[in-house]
C-alpha cells in the first residue's frame, strides 16, 4: 500500500522508486553515461559525413579551413578547458561541504560558457559578412583568389561550411543547454539543496559539461587545423 515502506523522507533527496541512496546514485550516473553514449552517436553522424567529404575534397576543406579565425578558435578552446577545470572544482567544493565556493565555481563556469558563445557568435558573424554561409548567396571567390596555388573548386567548399555550421551550431546548442543546467545547479546549491552528503546532481551535470567540452576538443582540430602550414 501507498503508505508503508515507501516514504523515506528522512534520507534527503532520495526518490520514492529507489531503495537507498547508493541505488539512486548508481542509477542516475548510469543514466547520464548512457545519454552521453547517445550523444556520441548523434554527433557521430556528422563526424562520418566530415570524414567522407574531407577524404573526397581535401584541398577544398584545407582551403576553407584556412578562412576561419584560428585565434578566436584557440581562445575558445582555452576558455572551454578552463571551464572544465572550474566544473571539477565546483564538484570538489561541494564534496568538501564548501557550498559558497561551489556556487562561485559554477558561476565562473557559466561565465566561461557565455564567453565561448559570444566568441562563437562573432566568428559566425564574420562568416556571414564574408558570404561564406552555404546557400544562394555563397561566394568563396576570396578564398580561391587568396590561395591560387591550391586549385580549389567553390562547390565542395559549401559542404565544408555546411558541416562547419551544422557541427558548431549543434555544439553551441549543447552549450546553451549546459549553461541552463549550470544555472539550475548554481541556484539550488545556493539555496542549500545540495550538501556534502547529497550532491549527485552536481556531479551528473558536470559530466554533461565535460562531454560538451570534449566534443569541442575534437571539433577544433577537425575544423580549424586541417592544413595551416604556410604556402610557398
Amino acid at each position, binding site marked *: 500500500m501507498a503508505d508503508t515502506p515507501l516514504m523515506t523522507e528522512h534520507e534527503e533527496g532520495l526518490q520514492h*522508486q529507489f531503495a537507498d541512496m547508493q541505488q539512486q546514485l548508481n542509477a542516475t550516473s548510469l543514466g547520464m553515461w548512457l545519454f552521453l553514449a547517445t550523444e556520441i552517436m548523434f554527433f557521430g553522424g556528422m563526424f562520418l559525413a566530415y570524414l567522407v567529404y574531407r577524404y573526397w575534397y581535401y584541398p577544398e576543406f584545407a582551403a576553407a579551413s584556412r578562412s576561419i579565425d584560428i585565434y578566436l578558435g584557440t581562445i575558445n578552446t582555452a576558455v572551454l578547458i578552463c571551464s572544465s577545470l572550474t566544473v571539477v572544482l565546483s564538484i570538489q567544493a561541494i564534496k568538501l561541504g564548501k557550498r559558497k565556493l561551489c556556487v562561485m565555481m559554477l558561476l565562473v563556469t557559466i561565465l566561461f560558457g557565455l564567453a565561448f558563445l559570444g566568441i562563437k557568435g562573432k566568428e559566425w558573424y564574420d562568416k556571414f559578412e564574408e558570404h561564406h554561409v552555404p546557400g544562394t548567396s555563397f561566394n568563396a571567390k576570396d578564398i580561391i583568389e587568396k590561395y591560387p596555388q591550391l586549385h580549389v573548386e567553390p562547390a565542395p567548399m559549401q559542404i565544408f561550411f555546411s558541416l562547419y555550421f551544422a557541427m558548431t551550431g549543434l555544439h553551441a546548442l549543447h552549450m546553451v543547454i549546459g549553461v541552463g543546467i549550470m544555472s539550475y545547479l548554481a541556484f539550488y546549491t545556493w539555496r542549500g539543496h545540495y550538501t556534502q552528503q547529497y550532491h549527485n546532481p552536481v556531479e551528473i551535470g558536470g559530466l554533461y559539461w565535460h562531454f560538451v567540452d570534449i566534443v569541442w576538443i575534437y571539433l577544433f582540430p577537425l575544423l580549424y587545423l586541417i592544413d595551416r602550414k604556410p604556402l610557398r
Partner: protein
Amino acid sequence: MATTAVTAEREHYLNTDYGIRSWLLTTDHKRIALLYLALITVFFFIGGFFALLIRLELLTPAGDLVQADTYNKLFSMHGQVMIFFFLIPSIPAVLGNFLVPMMVGAKDLAFPRINLLSWYLLVLAAGMMLYCIITGGVDTGWTFYTPFSTAFSNTHVIEAGLAIFIAGFSSILTGLNFVVTIHRMRAPGLTWSRLPLFIWSIYATSIIQLLGTPVLAITLLLVVFERAFGLGIFDPTRGGDPLLFQHLFWFYSHPAVYIMILPSMGVISEIIPCFSRKRVFGYGAVALSSIAIAVFGFLVWAHHMFVAGISLYSAMIFSMLSYSVAVPSAIKVFNWTATMYKGSLRFSTPMLYAMGFIGLFTMGGLTGLFLAALGIDVHVTDTYFVVAHFHYIMVGGAVMGYLGGLHFWWPKISGRLYPEWLGKFAALTVFLGFNLTFFPQFILGYLGMPRRYWQYPPEFQVLNVLSTAGSTILAVGYVLPMIYFLWSMRYGKVADPNPWGAAGLEWKTPSPPPTFNFDEAPEVTWEAYNYDEIPAPEEVPVG
C-alpha cells in the same frame, strides 16, 4: 459480478486518484503505459485508414480513386505514422512501461519523470505529424530519400522530419529508462539468468534505441537544415552524396525493424511457456539470441542499397552479414517450438496470437533471406515482394505479438477478463485477413509489380482484389479487440491476480496492481518459468 464489491474496496493504481490531472501529471509507469496505449491506438487507426485508402485505390488497375500525387502522400504517411507513431512505441512504451518495473520487482522505472516527459515528447511529435497530415501531408515515402526530399518535394518535409526527430527522443528516453531500470533496480535474488525473456528482449531493444535513434535524428535534422537553411551536405550539385544519406538513414532504420520485432519475440517467449505449462526450452540461447539480433542488426544496413550504386564487394559482404541474422532468429523459433513439444497446450487467445506469430514471422524471415541474396534482390527490389516481406515481419510479427501481449496481460492491466470467444474469433480473423492481404503480394512482387505506384497493368488485378478483400477482413480483426477491451473495462468479469497460472513477478501482485506494484518488496528465490512448480489452473477463466 459478486466480487466487484471486493475490488472496489482495494486501492490500486486505477482508482487511487481520479480526474484528468491525476493522469496527465502522473509519474506512475502503469498509468503512463495507458497514456501511450491511448495515443498509439489513435495513430494505429489513422495509419490503418491510409492503408485502406491505398488498398481501395489498388482495387482497379486504373488510377481512379486518387491521383498519383495523392497516392504518394498516402503511402508516405501510412509508413511514417505506422512506424514512428505506432510500431516503434507499441510494445516497449505500452507493455514495456507497464511490465518492466513489475517484472524486475521495482516500484517504478528509474526515472519516472523522464518517463512522463517521453510521453509528452511523443504527444508533441504526434501533434506535429497531425498538423503535417491536415495541411497536405508529405510525399517522400517514409524514407525521406535525398535529393528528392531536400530539393524537389513541395510537401511538408520539414514538419514531418521534425516530428520524427522529436518522436526519436521519446524513444531514446524510454530505452534509457529501461536499461537503467534493468541494470540497477532488480529485486534481491533476481539475477540476470532469472530474468524473464521479455526483459532480455526489451533490454536488447533499448540498446538499439539508444545507439541507433540518435543517428536517425541527426540525419533528419541535416535534411531539415538543407531545406530550411540551404546547407548542402546531401546535395549532389555541390558535391554532396545522396548515398551518404541512405547509409545514415538505414544505419538506424534497419535496426529499427528489430526495435519492432524483438519486443514481440519477448512477448511470445512469455506466452508460450505459460500455455504449454513448461519451462522455456533453451533459456540461455533465447536470451542471448536477443542480444545477438541487436548486435548483428547494426551490421546489415546496406542490404537496403544493393541497387543504389554501392560497390559489389561491399554488397557481397552486407549480403553475407544479412544471413547471420537468420541464426539467432531461427534459434528462437526452434526453441519456442521445442517448448511446445509435449507440453500440455491450451489454445487460449494469447496462445493463438503466439502461434500465429511463429508462422508469420517464419515466413517473413525466410523471405528476408531471399532478399538478402544479391541476385534475387536485384530481381525483386522495389516490388511488392519487399512490401509483403516486411509486412509479414512488422504486421504478422510485431503486431501479432503486440495483440497477443495485450490479451495476455489485459487482466493485469485492467483487472478484468475479455470475452474469450470474441478474442479467439478476432485472433483467427487477424490471421486469415493478414494472409489474404499480404500473401498475394509475394506473388505480385515475384511477377514484377513495382511498389509505390497508383496504377498497374490489368493482369495483376485478381491478386490485388484478393489483397484488398483481405485488408477489410484484417480491419475487422483489429477493430474487434478495441471494442471488447473497452467493453471489458466496465462489464468484464473480475480477474484473479493470476488467471493463467503464469510465472513471473507481475502475477504475484493483485490485479490491477497497487500504485507501487507490490504490497511488500519481493525477493526472488526461484528460476524463471518454473512451471513445474506452479499448478496449472483447473480451467482458464473465460471472460
